[in-house]
């Protein structure tokens, strides 16, 4: 059975504006994809350890050696808006009344 999803809630978590048409289409498509994906639940794997990465190495350390990195100017080159060497954004807090 297709999975029922609360599209509005998921879009809120994903910080994604969606049109009504996109919401309707995603609800159907994600329901069908998740129905297929739910097959992972058919495998009895209660005693199986999860794998996050196929790489066998853990805790890779290196010496903390200073080396040149990109300049401040280079890091700011792609900024959509900037002032005084800082990224400009619209207000992030309510102003008090």
């Amino acid at each position: 059975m297709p999975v029922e999803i609360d599209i509005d809630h998921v879009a809120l978590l994903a910080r994604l504006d969606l049109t009504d048409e996109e919401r309707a289409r995603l609800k159907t498509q994600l329901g069908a994809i998740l129905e297929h994906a739910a097959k992972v639940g058919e495998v009895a794997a209660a005693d199986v350890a999860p794998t996050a990465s196929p790489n066998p190495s853990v805790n890779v350390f290196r010496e903390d050696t200073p080396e040149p990195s990109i300049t401040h100017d280079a890091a700011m080159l792609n900024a959509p808006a900037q002032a005084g060497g800082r990224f400009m954004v619209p207000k992030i807090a309510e102003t008090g009344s």
Partner: protein
Amino acid sequence: MTELCDRTGSALSTGLAAGEFTAIELAESSLARVEAVDDRVEAFLTKTPQVALERAAELDTYLSTGAPKPEVAGIPIALKDVLTTNGIRTTCGSRILETYVPPYDCTAWTRLSGAGSVLIGKTNCDEFAMGSSNENSAYGPVHNPWDLDTVPGGSSGGSAAAVAAGEVVWALGTDTGGSVRQPAALTGVVGLKPTYWRISRYGLIAFASSLDTVGTFTRSVRDAAILLGALAGRDHRDATSVADEPGDFLARIDRGVKGLRIGVIADAFGAGVQPDVAASVRVAIERLAALGAEVTEVDLPHAEYALSAYYLIAPSEASSNLARYDGVRYGLRVDGDDSIAMMFATRGAGFGPEVKRRIMLGTYALSAGYYEAYYGQAQKVRTLVIQDYAAAFAGVDILVSPTSPTTAFRIGEKADDPMAMYLNDIFTIPANLAGVPAISVPCGLDAGGLPIGLQLTAPALDEATLFRTAAAIESDLGLDLRPPLLAGV
């Protein structure tokens, strides 16, 4: 007529070193091919002819001193547009990065560039490498040089098509679930996905970090081995890159397959596999047996769950990785009343349908109440897939299957059916989950004259045996893989 750009990298390297032609002549040959065919193939998003000619001129000056030449020096190359290039626009096939100019090179390009490679341009791809047809690019589809009405595969479709059409001698792509091997199969070239921790991913703009791999497109198996030799090795900027010395990938390439134990994946020839794909791969397996390999059948019992696990793990990681596109530091910004509104509007306008679908899928799979049933369970299936490979490789040296269940399909044919599209990757995904190396080698043409790929898979870090097996079948079949598009060039 064949031109310099139609030759293999190894032949060109020898010719350059012997002074038969200059690096400038070679770069001009490649640029002329781009000029002649790319209005129809549309493999490139950004072309870099000036950079290419300047680099070639520098190399010619250097070579005139009699200095030793790295094998990749002077060879025209293209990079998939998810690999960062300092000062050269890198879009990931997305509107959200339409004007993004990275301030740094990815390590893969740092290595090749340092060895004198000549960059022809950046290639089209599915947006953020999500797709199997290249139709998800914000900049339009790529056309398969074998039939311009069909897809080249994806997500590295531009790199595959550019190599197939001789626009470059070789190219880099990335492979997260088959994005190098599947387009290689559909365009009749060799596509290598090395071991997960073989090539540094620094500067590979992340899609799914536990699966993403840099891979190569070449027109010969030997070229794949040469290119891997130049790319492999430890990079302190990517903690997942291997500490082992890469070794010599060419040392055993001509040894043949006599005595090699080859396991045929029994389930990979059933429903959903185009009959002439199955038949062509069967013929190649018979040839391997005739060349002295011991062929047996093997089972990967959890392979049927791999696709489901992948379409939970990859979108989950993507939903997290793509959170960085918030309109603050780089990329598109769509203004809003406050920063949160700006973020919603930017992401809504900047991402295309497939990227939105995967972000939503991943966000759901990671959300409270669903995490264990979806993402958690998928990670356990991943363990079982890894155990399947370990059991199989206890008895055989190499696994064989088709690369893709079908040959190239028509542009638009599967665009509205995500599940049908996801099934393209059914044979390629398990290797990404397990981190093992795999290669697609052309093994024939279907009834419509479209290329078919054979996939070989080896244990982790054993690319040398992949090359040895792939070279044997390539040499035995001796296919002429010049796409019809080039007949009039």
